């Protein structure tokens, strides 16, 4: 059971990282890059639960920190995504899960992730963050998270049900 969950999580995360870095970030969209990885982490957390969400967030964060062309500190995204995965899995009541609420959660998560990355980087002494750009990046990240939700969340939910039917969480 746990292996199959691991395989689902690993595959989703890997595909999300590759698509984000090779496709979405190259589209030249204004503002932030559509954060497919965070949306995927939230989708996994909603479909499987807080522990799986947190693990998926940790794995995704480490992978995106290590994969080229990343030049950020290893572990920053890991801890941010971990917290997001946990919160999304833990605090959202399964009975509340209408698409509107889910879209709200993902857009809060993607916006929050962008803001948290800027904040943590500045706290740790990085000089790259231009705070004049942060509100716009955060807002656009939230908007793109909102738009990705209706595609990603149902697909991950369907995949989880298909591959690990024993998960009764959703």
């Amino acid at each position, binding site marked *: 059971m746990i292996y199959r969950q691991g395989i689902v999580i690993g595959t989703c995360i890997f595909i999300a*990282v*590759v*698509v*984000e*870095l*090779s*496709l*979405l*970030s*190259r*589209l*030249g969209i204004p*503002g*932030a*890059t559509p*954060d497919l990885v965070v949306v995927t982490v939230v989708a996994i957390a909603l479909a499987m639960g*807080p*522990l799986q969400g*947190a*693990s998926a967030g*940790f794995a995704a*964060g*480490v*992978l*995106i*920190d*290590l*994969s*080229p*062309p*990343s*030049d*950020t*500190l*290893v*572990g*920053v995204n*890991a*801890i941010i995504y*971990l917290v997001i995965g*946990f919160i999304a899995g*833990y605090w959202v009541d399964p009975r509340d899960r209408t698409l509107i609420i889910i879209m709200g959660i993902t857009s809060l998560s993607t916006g929050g*992730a*962008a803001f948290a*990355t*800027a904040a943590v*980087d500045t706290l*740790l002494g*990085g*000089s*790259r*963050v*231009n705070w004049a*750009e942060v509100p716009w*990046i955060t807002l656009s*990240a939230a908007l793109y998270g909102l738009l990705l939700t209706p595609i990603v969340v149902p697909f991950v939910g369907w995949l989880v049900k298909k591959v690990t039917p024993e998960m009764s969480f959703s």
Partner: protein
Amino acid sequence: MLSRRTKIILATLVVASLTFVILDLRGGDGPFSSARAAVSSVLGGVQRGAATVFSPVTGFSEWWGTQVDQSGQIRTLTDDNALLSTQLVEAENDIARANELDALLRVASVGRYRVVPAEVIAVGPAQDFSWTVTIDAGTLDGVEEDMTVINGDGLVGRVLKVYNSTATVVLLVDPESSVGGRVAGSQEIGIVSGTGRQNSLQFQLLDPLGEVNAGDAIVTFGSKGGRPFAPGLPIGEVVDVSGTAGALARVATVSPYADVSQLSVVGVVVRPPREDPRDSVLPSAPAVAPTRAPVAPQTTDPTPDATSKPEVVQEDEKAATPAPAEPGN
């Protein structure tokens, strides 16, 4: 409520992430260089494949981005467009790429740079605030750290990390990037640094009394041994100068020639020219005749050190100032 096992796993993950941050904060090569190399060798191949699969999509956005951003190029683009729209999307994409390669080869041959062509296969997400891209050339192609990266329009950045078949390039608009620049046709030198915005750089003059005007072109000053920056590469055009002559800090805003948001074919300068090409590489260089003449006596000087240049300057300036007037082609 959470079970004991869940809490233990969560605590472990949190501690692990914090440990990573602390280890990586210590700087230097750190324990992550081998991990990064391993991930890059796996992901590099996947990203290369993905870049090929996605190339019609990214190629389209490149075409679209140029259309939207640069109204000055609309006329040439409309001509190109009429030609290209008769062909398939795939063919359009290939032709655009070949043109970029041609432009790159032109820059390389005019300045006598030896370049290794490469393609951008991944771009860092904007919310990292770092402007870095991955290219599909690495140590196997002769790429080393701190080599200059250019494209058909001018300077793009420098190689930050290099792996077997891929390399990470930090773009010149990255807030942590700075390049020695020189005003084309004069001897004014200064530091060009990134601002984190894709269409503006800051040029700070070293000499507060120096002369710099909107419309001036900035080229690289060149580093010792051509690394990290080869001399003579076009960086951008001055669009605005703040502060009066003699003020303590004179800062000019520079618009880079290379559109870093739409990179596809780039070249890594594996060997800089033996002599500083001076201003011959600037965008209006097809009109080679006027710029070549003053350049010839200059190239006898083997050092790229512009401060020690003799009095030839004045002539040079007069002859070369018309050169950067039209970077639009």
